């Protein structure tokens, strides 16, 4: 089980002090949060991507590259990478470089982005969101897997004889998750490719999250990747912890009431009841988090949103300390009664091992060298090349 945090990179005024961090402060805070996340023992740090204020992270690989240099162990991911408005060629290039620099500690979560005006700034139309996600990702996969790509699609200029440089590290592309709150097409896409599926699990009741995850699991099995309970599922979530639950409620309420997206809406109590938000003691966070399994089955990745809504860096770092303290309890809970055949989330090491096993398996199946020509069956021209 991977446990980590994700941030959207919002720049929000602290409602209790009226202070608004500068972009510079928030960018440096993201680095402080990421390094702290590794220090307290978390497995994943995922960073958002936005191209409009009040968000700062327009260049996630620059930020993650810097974090990679400051950390040794934590997996760097995205929440999310905009597969709609970014050029898939640039995604392939940027994340290949990042993967090399981070020694393979990289995966990505694809998302569409829901801000209408951002699309035309990149020459796209939000109404094509699903089609863009489908076509761009299909191309991205080929760029990371085929030595030479000839390609023509609807949304991007054609490619003839394109070779990605650099190639992914060890010939193994980063693992990909697909994030969606309520588009069945995206769950379908994740299932089709045998990729991971991530539900943000923040705004909606867990019953809704379960419907999306179940669809993905069912279709994972349909496409032949294995039994439904072996699909790779990630969930979001959010908490605010203090040792005493009354303190947590009192301290977080002004942030909740003014929070972007759900602020000025339902009461914090209603929202806690209707969504996975937990504001309370460490024990309450443990119990609530472990209950997600009852809704979606044993899963592979749990990411928490802890640094939004204007919470000061000091408070966020305190939240990370508390998360670090309950981490052993969370891991123990997630391991309890987890069937042996439920896989862990793929990592670079596991993907390299799987590719190696696959190669050995193929060598056993076919003669290494053709009797007549003396050539190995793997000497053939690349799949995308014309002989």
């Amino acid at each position, binding site marked *: 089980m991977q446990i980590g945090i994700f941030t959207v990179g919002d720049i929000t005024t602290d409602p209790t002090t009226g202070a608004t961090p500068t972009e510079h402060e928030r960018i440096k805070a993201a680095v402080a949060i990421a390094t702290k996340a590794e220090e307290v023992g978390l497995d994943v740090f995922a960073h958002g991507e936005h191209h409009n204020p009040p968000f700062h992270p327009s260049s996630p690989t620059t930020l993650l590259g810097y974090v990679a240099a400051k950390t040794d162990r934590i997996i760097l991911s995205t929440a999310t990478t905009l597969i709609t408005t970014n050029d898939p060629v640039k995604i392939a290039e940027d994340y290949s470089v990042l993967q090399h620099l981070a020694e393979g500690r990289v995966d990505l979560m694809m998302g569409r982005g829901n801000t209408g005006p951002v699309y035309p700034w990149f020459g796209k139309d939000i109404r094509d969101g*699903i*089609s863009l996600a*489908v*076509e761009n990702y*299909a191309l991205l996969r080929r760029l990371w897997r085929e030595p030479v790509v000839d390609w023509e699609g*609807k949304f991007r200029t054609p490619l003839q004889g394109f070779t990605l440089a650099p190639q992914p590290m060890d010939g193994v592309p980063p693992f990909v998750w697909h994030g969606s709150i*309520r588009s*069945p*097409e995206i769950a*379908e*896409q994740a*299932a*089709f490719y045998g990729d991971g599926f991530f539900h943000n699990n923040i*705004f*909606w*009741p867990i019953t809704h999250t379960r*419907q*999306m995850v*179940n*669809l993905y699991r069912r*279709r994972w099995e*349909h*496409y032949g990747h294995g039994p439904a309970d072996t699909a790779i599922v990630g969930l979001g979530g959010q908490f605010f912890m203090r040792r005493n639950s009354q303190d947590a409620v009192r301290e977080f309420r002004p942030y909740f009431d003014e929070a972007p*997206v*759900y602020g*000025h*809406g*339902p009461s914090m109590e*209603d929202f806690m009841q*209707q*969504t996975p938000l937990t504001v309370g003691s460490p024990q309450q966070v443990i119990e609530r988090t472990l209950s997600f399994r009852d809704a979606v089955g044993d899963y592979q990745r749990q990411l928490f949103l802890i640094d939004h809504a204007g919470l000061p860096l000091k408070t966020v770092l305190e939240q990370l300390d508390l998360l670090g303290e309950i981490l052993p309890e969370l891991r123990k809970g997630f391991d309890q009664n987890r069937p042996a055949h439920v896989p862990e989330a793929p990592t670079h090491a596991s993907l390299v091992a799987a590719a190696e096993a696959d190669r050995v398996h193929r060598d056993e199946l076919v003669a290494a060298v053709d009797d007549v020509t003396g050539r190995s069956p793997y000497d053939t021209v690349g799949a995308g090349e014309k002989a």
Partner: protein
Amino acid sequence: MSNTVVVISAGVGTPSSSHLLGEQLGKATQRVLAAAGRPIEVQHVELRTLASDLAHQLVTHVPSPALTDVYGAVGRAVGVIVVSPVFNASYSGLFKLFFDLMDEGVMAGRPVLLSATGGTARHSLVIDTAILPLFHYLKALISPVGVFAATADWGDSTSQLSSRIESAAREFGQLVAERPGTPMQDEFSTEIDFADLLRGA
């Protein structure tokens, strides 16, 4: 197969004349369909009880459990009766909000009886000028006879309110019998063939 007609009334008072009109239209429809051998259930929804849920959904995009239930019921209804009070020459904001926040396609092809209440008969064209365009936009199957009830109509036998309710229910009942609304498909049970998506279908 559902056999429920849902009555959505946006009256804000208690008691409310919109709710009263909705009740009478529901009962009349029940009688018409029972006589035709197709008994139905009638479910009443008073939007005033959902007003804060609707306001919250407007800003957070997330329906409350109560709203999820109501939208689900509308999505399964064989027909829908809508009643709005007239506010400033149109339907009320609460009435509009309910349909604004409804998922796309829920009203499409679903029989709907349009009705409204107002202080005086001078508002009676509100059904044609305001409510009708909204339900055309939602692609609802609109019953040809609507009912407008002015305050004075409730005490005036020459207003023929009862017979107007009966005749509206007759037309609506016939529509429900012949072309009942079909349940919305569960979006998570729909199986898309990814190959179609890849082809851009």
